[in-house]
């Protein structure tokens, strides 16, 4: 975005600050002038067309023309959305409802008219040609009008008067000769100073006005609700599947072994005097069963919540994970505290899945894991897993990475994969969270 870039530059070069400001103001003035012209002519023309077209709907002609006109209105509004974000950093999300491509003209027309976003477009046109025009013209005038004052002071006043009568007004200054022309020049300078300082701000006001009409105000919330509904469903599905897995593992594994052990012990009780040798054999078997049951329980626990994660937190858990990999793995951790337990677990299993993927598919010789937390924007955990393998990893297509993405989604985390063919692969994960 231009504005941000300019700001950054001005901060960097303190000497050029005044120059930069003047330049930004001049740019804002020119843009504002353009906006004022476009807002007035474009909005009036489109508004007239829209009204006429909608009035003609009962006659049938409007049914054909309205979608065309509304498409033009939408194009005009979208262009202004673009300018808003480019020139002033004001985001106005478009929220048009999709119209099926094979809809007949009748359906197309009424669907469009029923779309709240389209109705807001139509409401915006008269606002834009009045208030929008004024808010755009004001910064333009503040930048351009002073130059008339300077021109008058420089001698232009002679065109209007010979010095004996008031031949022209500049603002509230009557021009009647060189002294008053100089006064006009001074007023112009004052106006220019005001303009230089306020033009970018006033331009922003114009776009904020545009946003207040065009954006529903509920769009972001609605979007958020949609995302939350989806991630909640994912989370519920995942945890239900996880519970089923645990139940099955316990039932088929440790539980069955304990039952077998109980039976063995019963047999031993019966055999201990009749056949001590056989009993001793069964004791050994029971002991093996108990050891195996313990191993199984241990694996199960590691799958639910790795002990080292509970004991040491994410950093050391990832280090321990790296120690078990068959590929040399460097782990760099910068976490000045512990994370919340659910986030820790999600991040750990995400890293684990990504590393497993890398070991299985990348053909890499080295892996680097970087885990760090930055406090800005309310805290952000960033994890990057890089390998020097063959690349070509992608989210989706049934890869483990889409599972990771869903897992992180529950915490509003995001996953980005950069893996050009030929490598290297870099998987980046970000989860907003605070340290405790």
């Amino acid at each position, binding site marked *: 975005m231009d504005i941000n870039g300019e700001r950054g530059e001005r901060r960097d070069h303190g000497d050029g600050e005044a120059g930069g400001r003047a330049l930004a103001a001049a740019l804002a003035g020119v843009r504002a002038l353009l906006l004022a012209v476009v807002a007035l002519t474009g909005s009036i023309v489109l508004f007239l067309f829209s009204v006429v077209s909608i009035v003609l709907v009962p006659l049938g002609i409007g049914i054909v023309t309205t979608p065309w006109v509304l498409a033009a209105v939408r194009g005009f509004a979208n262009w202004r959305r673009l300018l808003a974000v480019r020139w002033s950093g004001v985001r106005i999300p478009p929220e048009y409802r999709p119209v099926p491509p094979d809809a007949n003209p009748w359906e197309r027309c009424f669907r469009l008219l029923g779309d709240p976003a389209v109705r807001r477009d139509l409401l915006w046109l008269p606002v834009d040609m009045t208030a929008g025009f004024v808010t755009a013209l004001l910064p333009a005038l503040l930048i351009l009008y002073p130059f008339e004052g300077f021109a008058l002071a420089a001698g232009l006043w002679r065109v209007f008067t010979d010095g004996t009568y008031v031949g022209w007004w500049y603002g509230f200054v009557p021009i009647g000769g060189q002294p008053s022309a100089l006064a006009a020049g001074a007023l112009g300078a004052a106006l220019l100073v005001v303009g230089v300082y306020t033009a970018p701000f006033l331009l922003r006001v114009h776009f904020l006005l545009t946003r207040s009409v065009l954006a529903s105000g509920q769009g972001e919330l609605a979007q958020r609700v949609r995302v939350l509904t989806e991630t909640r469903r994912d989370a519920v599905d995942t945890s239900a599947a996880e519970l089923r897995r645990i139940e099955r593992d316990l039932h088929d594994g440790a539980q069955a072994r304990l039952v077998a052990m109980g039976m063995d012990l019963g047999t031993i009780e019966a055999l201990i005097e009749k056949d001590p040798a056989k009993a001793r054999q069964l004791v050994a078997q029971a002991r093996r069963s108990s*050891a195996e049951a*313990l191993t199984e329980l241990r694996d199960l626990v*590691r799958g639910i919540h790795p*002990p*080292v994660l509970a*004991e040491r937190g994410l950093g050391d858990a990832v280090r321990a994970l790296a120690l078990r990999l*068959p590929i040399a793995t460097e782990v760099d951790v910068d976490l000045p505290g512990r994370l919340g337990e659910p986030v820790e677990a999600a991040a750990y299993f995400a890293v684990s899945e990504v590393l497993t993927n890398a070991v299985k598919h990348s053909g890499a010789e080295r892996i680097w894991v970087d885990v760090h937390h930055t406090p800005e924007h309310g805290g952000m955990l960033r994890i990057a897993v890089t390998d020097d393998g063959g690349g070509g990893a992608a989210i989706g297509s049934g890869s483990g990475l889409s599972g990771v993405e869903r897992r992180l989604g529950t915490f509003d985390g995001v996953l980005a994969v950069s893996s050009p063919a030929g490598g290297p692969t870099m998987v980046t994960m970000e989860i907003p969270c605070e340290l405790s």
Partner: protein
Amino acid sequence: MRVVLAEDLFLLRDGLVRMLEAFDFEIAAAVESGPELTRALADLEPDIAVVDVRLPPSHTDEGLQCALAARRARPGLPVLVLSQHVEQLYARELLADGNGGVGYLLKDRVFDAEQFIDAVRRVAAGGTAMDPQVIQQLLARRQGDGRPLGRLTPRELEVLELMAQGRSNAAIAGQLVVTERAIAKHTSNIFQKLGLDVSDDDNRRVLAVLAYLDQGR
């Protein structure tokens, strides 16, 4: 031999006390939390500490941290750490000071009373007792990328595994049912193939093997 025991689960603590007493150890103290352990190790000066990794009040790795702190205060204090799970990370922390007299075993190893007591005695004497699971993890890793290990015969690999756990040649010979001379031959072959210094000192031997297995990290 005087033992300080730290274990928060009553059943396990009780069982360990009975087992150690059955093998003629003297229980100087059996405690259930980190702070108590620290105090007991400082006051009672035992010959060995047998410690659970996870202890109250934090229920994280408090036992391990107390043991490491005690070893910093009294270098070479024999410590045998027991855990429900074993992590190479913890094994490396225990071995880091190179003083020996450390052990790190799964709690399951207690099932085999004689082997467990053997490990306690070895650690108390300044030796090492590493859990077979730690060694197997290390071996699996090294076999993935390491050619030198590939040059070992299956028998030599077996000997290497037992050696890395901290067993002496005599003990390895006993377990594999061969003569001690045969084991001595295997070990010198292993050291030669891996490019390690031959040494008679049990503990130095283990550290060399572990350092080899752990290298490239």
